[in-house]
Structure formats: C-alpha cells, structure tokens
C-alpha cells in the first residue's frame, strides 16, 4: 500500500519536471495525418446528381436539387439527349457524423475528404455548407498519398492500363491481369473516354462479366 502511494507521488513529481508535449493550437498548427477527415469537398463537374450519396447518408444531411436539361442533337436527325444539371448540393455539418459513406459510394469521384477543420460557427445554421462553399474546400484536398511499399497495385491505375475490351490486345505487362479485377470494369465505363466508335456497347449489356471475358481470351 505505502510503496504504491509513494510510487504515485514519484510519478507525478517526475512528470512535473519534464516538458509537456502540449502543442498550443492557434499558435502551433497541427500536423494532420494523411486521410484526415476534416470537411467534405465537392467537385461539382463530376457530380451527376445521381443521389446515391444522399440516399446512403445515415443521417440524411445531404440535400440535392437537380433538373433535367435537354441537349439538342448535334447531328441533323440525331437524337436529343437529356442531362442532369445540379441546382443545389448542400451538406449540413451540424448533422454530419463524418462517416465518409457518401465519399465511398460516389461512383464519379465528386466528393473528397479535406483535412481542413476550422469551420466552426457561432450560429448552427451556418454549418449548412452550400455548393459554393463545398466547392471551395476542393483546393485544400491533398493529392492522394502514395501507396505503401509492397501494397497491391491500385485498381484504378491498372484499369487504365488494361486493354479495352474487344480491342486487339497489345503487349501488356503481366500486371494487366491483376488490374482487370472486380473493380476495374465498374470504373471502365466512367473514367476512360471511349476509345473509338469500334467500342462495344456499355458493359451492362455484355452477357458475361468482362473480367471473365478477358481471361477466356487468354
């Protein structure tokens, strides 16, 4: 009992003599780790108003308004196309719990984590960030950190390098096969511009999963 008490006293006394590790925040900027979750930024050009993020949000803090616009046919006799135009995109950060599900589910990479955290307000209603403000956070979004040494290749990069389905195979590194895994075909249609009028129809129309198709060719 007594040694324990003395040990307690000694520990606190030793701490008293040492320098503290406190970094006083407003004077000393914190060094945030990569992938810090500060605020959610919106890249408006990528957004297609698909509403996936709003529907997946656990506390319904994303508000999206959009309308359809008709684009006249570019060639005479061609078909008119319709396009979603984003009117309003707002995140209420007084409700947001920073789970990041919206960023995960966005199929078009329109949402990003920004490490910026200094947006406290004196009025809670000001925590509703509109399109403009969400877009403004984009400049604080850091470039994605380099993968760890020994990590599996990044799916998106490999998908970029994978051969276009149906196109004649050019000599590719063996990594090409690894890249054309499950996530690759999902990204293909989005990211890559169509490589020519010879390209096959959308992947959803193909009867077999494309990854298997590639393997079958080998």
């Amino acid at each position: 009992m007594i040694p324990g008490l003395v040990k307690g006293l000694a520990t606190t006394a030793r701490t008293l003599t040492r320098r503290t590790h406190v970094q006083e925040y407003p004077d000393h900027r914190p060094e945030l780790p990569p992938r810090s979750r500060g605020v959610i930024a919106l890249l408006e050009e990528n957004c297609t108003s698909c509403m996936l993020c709003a529907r997946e949000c656990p506390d319904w803090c994303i508000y999206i308004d959009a309308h359809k616009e008709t684009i006249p046919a570019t060639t005479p006799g061609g078909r008119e196309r319709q396009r979603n135009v984003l009117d309003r995109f707002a995140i209420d950060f007084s409700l947001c719990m920073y789970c990041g599900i919206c960023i995960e589910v966005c199929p078009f990479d329109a949402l990003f984590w920004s490490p910026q955290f200094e947006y406290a307000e004196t009025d809670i209603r000001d925590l509703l960030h509109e399109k403009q403000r969400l877009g403004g956070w984009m400049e604080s979004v850091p470039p994605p950190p380099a993968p760890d040494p020994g990590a599996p290749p990044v799916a998106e990069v490999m998908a970029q390098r994978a051969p276009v389905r149906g196109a004649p195979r050019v000599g590719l590194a063996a990594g090409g096969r690894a890249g054309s895994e499950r996530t690759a075909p999902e990204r293909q249609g989005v990211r890559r511009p169509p490589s020519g009028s010879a390209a096959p129809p959308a992947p959803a129309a193909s009867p077999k999963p494309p990854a298997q198709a590639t393997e079958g060719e080998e």
Partner: protein
Amino acid sequence: MGALEIVLRAAAALAMLLVLPLLVGQTEHKVMAHMQGRLGPMYAGGYHGWAQLVADGVKFVQKEDIIPAAADRRVFKLAPALAMIPYLLALAAIPLHPGYAAIDAPASLVFVLAATSVGVLGTLMAGWASANKYALLGAMRSAAQLLSYELPMVLAVASVALAAGTLSLGEIVEAWSPWWLLWQLPGAVVFLTAAVAELQRPPFDMPVADSEIVFGPYTEYTGLRFALFLLSEYAGIVMFSLLFAVLYLGGWRGPLADWLGWAWTLGKGFLVALLLIWLRVSWPRLREDQLQRLAWLWLVPIALVQLAITAVAVVS
C-alpha cells in the same frame, strides 16, 4: 483597541481571505496541469494565464442565480455564507508574524477548531435544502466523514497544545523547537490526513465525487453562490496549511524572524498547500468504508498514542 484598528484588522483578514485562496487556486491549476503533462491556463491575463481565476470570478458573477423550485429557499441561500464565514474567522486567528494576528485570542487554537467545525453546517444545509438526491447523498457522506475525522484532528492538536503547554497559537510557535519535527511526527501525519478529509479534497473527496453524485451538496448551486463554496474550499486549504505550518513547522521561526517572520509563515504554509495539491493529483479516491476504517482504525489510535507519548514526555 480603537475602532480604526478593528477596521484595519478586519480589512487585513478579508484581504487575506480574498487573495491567498486565489494564489493557491492558481498554483493548483498550474501544478496539477504540469503534473499531468499539460500546461493549464495559458491565455487569461497574458503571461501563463495568471488571471484565469479572476476571469472565472467574472464569469461566476454573470451567471444566473438559480434556486430549485422544491428547495428550502432561505436555508439554500444562507448555506454558502455559513460555509464561508467560519473559514474567514479561523484564518483571521492564525498569527503570521510575532504578535500579529487579526484576532488576538488567548485560546486561539480552540477558536480555530471551533470555527472550522461550524463550517460543516454550510455543507449540510446546502445538501439538505437543495431538494436533490445527489445533494442529500453528498451531505450525508460529508457529515459522516467530518464527524469521523474531527476526533483524530482534535486529538492530534491536543498533543501539540500539551507539548507547548498553551492553547495560544502564538505561544505554541514560541515553544516550538526543531526537535518537534520528529517528536510530533505521528501527530502531524494524523493532522494532515484529517485536514485533507475535512477539506473534502482527493483522496477524501467522496462527498463531492463528481463521477457518482455530480458535485455532492453543491450540485444545485450556480453563479456567485457556487463561487462562494469554491472560495471557502480554497480558504480552507489556506487555513489548514497555515495552521499546519504554525503547529508543526514552527510558523515564523527561521533566520531574520523579526523582519521576515510573516514570509516564513506564508512560505511554510505554501509548501503545505503544494503538498495538498500533490496528494490530490497522485492518489485515487477512497471508498466510503475505506475512509471510515482509516479514521477509526488508524488515525484515532495513532493520535492517542501520540498524545500518550507527549504526556509522558511533558510530565517526566
């Protein structure tokens, strides 16, 4: 004693009551923070947050004064004053310098003990009048604790009075010799333990244990009345630290006592206050049964043995 002198003495005692607790409070802020690897207040007042407690006081004054609807209003309002004034009186009776105490009483030792024993009433009244179960639980714990620790404290103090052959604090200091540090050591330990218990500070903060009963008897208090309770706690620390310095550490005894006696007393008292803060930071809270066992099975017997040793030494 002219009227002017009375006013001067009262003003000096009040100034001591208002300044010394703030000093102890600020020391606690900083020392506790550094003992826990923090910095404590750094901004209020500019230099290392020296004005933090002044800022706290201003905040307390601005807060709304809430009295619960079911409370006993008069008792509720009276309680903070009753907790505060005894410590003021006790503090005034402690001599700081040869011949200098705000209250000159022949039996100042008994006066100090009597005054502190009245302070308990404030806590009890606060706990009962709040009409809150946490407050009532806290008041009962505090009553049980104070009743238990009053006895060893009085016994330990009696030993000192016996050794000095007087009940006057000033004469006790005159009779003190460094030999007392060893001779009265058990009594000193008992007195310090009982003092921490009377102050209801960790490790004896069962009555206000914030993780169990919010803030015990003071749960319902806000604003200035709450500040009065806090002030009385810190005034109690100052009072018991100075009393310990006077009883066991020889008060103003030291080199140049004629000029610097007051500095010696205050310095020794400050060291004791630092010790109290250190104990608070280092040790966990005692449970109620442990608390009672410590008082009755250890402190009372030790104090009795000390009393017997002192009596034998004095008589022989």
